[in-house]
């Protein structure tokens, strides 16, 4: 009986002092929440701030052309949000009291989502439309018929472009 007791005490002491540890895999978990805010934005860059049509003989140059003007659109909107680019003329082409109807000033386009059209001073005309966020780009070329009927003068008009991304 005494042998058994002493053997137990020695064994316990050995466990505390000389035991070889055996590790099981330990795992700890944690988490961090992430929130990102993406808001609507729209940026429009035109390749030219002004366009000039030089005088020309109507018989040899029946249509005056501006050359291609780049349009760079950057828009952030909802997944299926409609992005639209419109143009509204500030008025007719005017030289003193003489005018040329702005509807004569048309444009052709190149690039996905861009559409050809004619300018108007009362209703904004669509230049391009897209769905969702993105950075479409293209060109448009302004053209004015070179009619014999125009009164001489230097005509000026302003075209106002608006990019909308809801």
């Amino acid at each position, binding site marked *: *009986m*005494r*042998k058994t*007791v*002493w*053997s137990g005490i*020695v*064994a316990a002491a*050995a*466990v505390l002092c*000389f*035991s*070889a*540890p*055996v*590790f*099981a*895999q*330990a*795992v*700890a*978990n*944690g*988490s*961090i*929440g*992430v*929130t*990102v*805010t*993406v*808001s*609507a*934005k729209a*940026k429009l860059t035109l390749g030219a701030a002004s366009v000039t049509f030089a005088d020309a003989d109507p018989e040899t140059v029946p249509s005056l052309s501006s050359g291609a003007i780049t349009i760079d659109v*950057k*828009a*952030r*909107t*909802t*997944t299926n*949000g409609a992005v639209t680019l419109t143009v509204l003329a500030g008025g007719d082409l005017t030289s003193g009291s003489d005018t040329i109807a702005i509807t004569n000033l048309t444009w052709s386009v190149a690039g996905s989502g861009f559409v050809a059209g004619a300018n108007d001073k009362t209703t904004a005309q669509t230049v391009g439309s897209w769905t*969702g*966020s*993105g*950075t479409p780009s293209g060109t448009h070329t302004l053209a004015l018929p070179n009619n014999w009927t125009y009164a001489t003068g230097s005509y000026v008009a302003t075209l106002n472009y608006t990019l909308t991304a809801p």
Partner: protein
Amino acid sequence: MRHLFALLVVALWPALAEAQTDSATLNAAFTGLARLSFSANSITFVDADPDFVPQVSSSPATITISTKARASSGGTVTLSVQASDDLRSGVATIPASHVTWTVSGAGFLGGTLSATAAQTVATWTGSGVRSGTQSFYFRNLWTHPTGTYTLTMLYTLSAA
């Protein structure tokens, strides 16, 4: 008289004399330990113009990670992170991989978040108390749909 005393001693402590020659097989199991804590439990990325801020820094700018691990001698201690999902705002999503991080601290590694596979944030060898920081960035593109996106980064510290 002396002989009588000696016999008496032997008679009283026979067990003690015999126990010193015994042997015992000892088995002990110590489970490993791992502790993980963060200086903040959430980060946010505010809206910014992609042309001027192509990589948005988080707020707070850095997260301090503290780890405590008891592993076997030469055992590997690994801290990994996996996104619960892509960044999601209703039906709109942005891949979790648009979140990246840089680090400071021994054993820490820079990386890119993933919703499909755990990415290693840090590795060490053996037991110890370690800390380091993660600085997070969001890839800010014009093509992202608008919205308030969320995900959860799930960290796992394992000590083998």
